[in-house]
């Protein structure tokens, strides 16, 4: 999460790119603590029924799961490595 805040977000135009952390289940202590400890400024959301995780899950992987949506709202990437997701973002933004 700090990598997204400190490295990924500053690397892209905020008008063209955004990030969201989605924490599964309603228990909010963990994400709220993360928000505080790491000083996160991007949205940290609660997924009350883990719906998004079920939607994008990968076989044999649990978390974290990085998903990239393109400008048209299509799934552009699903994977576990942040570097791979960032590379897809760069490609989509012509970087």
């Amino acid at each position, binding site marked *: 999460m700090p990598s*997204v805040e400190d490295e*990924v977000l500053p690397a*892209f135009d905020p*008008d*063209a*790119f*955004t*990030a969201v*952390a*989605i*924490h*599964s*289940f*309603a*228990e*909010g*202590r*963990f*994400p*709220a*603590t993360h*928000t*505080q*400890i*790491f000083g996160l400024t991007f*949205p*940290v*959301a*609660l997924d*009350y*029924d*883990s*719906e*998004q*995780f*079920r*939607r*994008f*899950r*990968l*076989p044999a992987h649990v*978390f*974290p*799961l*990085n*998903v*990239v*949506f393109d*400008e*048209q*709202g*299509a*799934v*552009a*990437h*699903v994977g576990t490595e*942040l570097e791979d997701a*960032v590379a897809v*973002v760069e490609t989509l*933004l012509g970087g």
Partner: protein
Amino acid sequence: MILGLAAILGACGGGGAGGSTPAETDTDTGGAGTTSGGPSTGGADDSSGSAEDGVGETEPVACGDATYVDVLTPRWDDGASLPAEVQRSTARGEGGALLCGAGFVARADAGELDVLDVPGLTGTCTGLADLGGGQAVATSDAGDLVWVDLAAGAVLDGRTEPHPLFDVVAAKGAVWLAAGTEGVLSVPLVEGQLGAAQVVPGADDARGLLTTDAGLLVADGYVLGDIEDPTVGGARYRLLDADGGGAQAELVEGPGFAQRLVAASGRIFGIRPGHGLDELSVSGGRVSLASSLQVDEGILEVASDGDVLLAAAGSALLRLSTTEDGLAWVARDVRPDRGAVDGAWIRTVAHVDGAFMAGHGGRWAPVDTMAAQVAPEVSVEAFTFTMTEGQTEALFGLDNLGTAPLRVTDVMADAPFSAEVAADINPPTQGCPDEFLVPPGGRLLFWLRHDDSEPVSEGTLRILSNDPDQPTYVASVERGRPPAQVGDAVEPFRVLTVDGRDFDSRDQLGKVVLAKLYNPL
């Protein structure tokens, strides 16, 4: 506070429940329970807890479907309909309540509803200050600031600040705005116009405001923590000199961030979403912590009537209380739509003219509460229980978060699913073959099975128990749903952030989005 204990009727042998006795009992045996021979094949996942968490060894208890009083009953169907989701509310000094949401401000009073369209109020309505005489000022996280006159049906003035606004309070012919990292802003109200904003020094991340005799109390975000040292940092409450003298006092307390302040029944409450609720004391120029209650849900707002507290937590309504020992948890009512993209969030509550009211999506509805009783409370790991393709069996758990023994009389699922209590791990109560007792704080494991007749299935799981809030707890079950693939259109979704804001995937079209999903069940 534990009230209304009564003698239990009849007694079963061992395997009894720990904790308290029921408030009321009868001798019905309830529904047909099922027992299981235990696991037969592999493929179980998500098992958590242990047999030791289950039925304890305490005093004998009654067979039968012990009943308890439902102390929390929202009456969503009895409410009034608003043009959009009700996002904030406040009780009016003249009676009734003020409500706001995207594009509207309304006055609800004794069944009458005056709704004013306010196109300049976009995003999520975050604050609402009653000016009296039908006038109010509302704010939004899109930076909108509007002054309305509901009596005249007019928007008097409005503008958009270049930063989010999280709260607003009125005093001394001005409104004060919680403007996040911009701090607290003071805006004079002069002849129907909003004056220029002036910074009130002393706040770093103003999220919530409350006027007190001692000054302006601010829920001021947090002091940055240290992942290696949990004693560093925490939620910050600050008392400001409203005349510009800066911070007069500061309290840094507990993990998380301070988001909201509410005054009710002569008490001051601070909200730390995801962590809980604080009761604060402001006296002698100091801010101190009177009591604190850990609540896992992301509380967005609280209202109180004496010792009775009602909290809006997005996905649920919570009944809390103040006791001699401090704040206490009483009951929870989960919203019925369970996270649908256009589902109805519970964002706001108020105590209005002697009754509790709550916003539920676009409804403003009454909520009945009763004095705290001991009672069981079913809680499950998810609203949807998931099996992967080809999986025929999985072990799940349900918890009793209540204060009395939970009596589970059946767990069942639609065909081709089936469900049954893992009776080898959690045996039925001796002498009560149709009941599985879960003591307060305990867990009951059950099997969810699929007959493998089709690769993809959806259905419903039902848990029958003596939980007074939800005697039939309904959850979804699914098996083999294929995950989204690259190239698929993203199915729209809407999630609530830890500070009570929306993230709607539909608002992100035109942008590339990195969604980082973590800590799944």
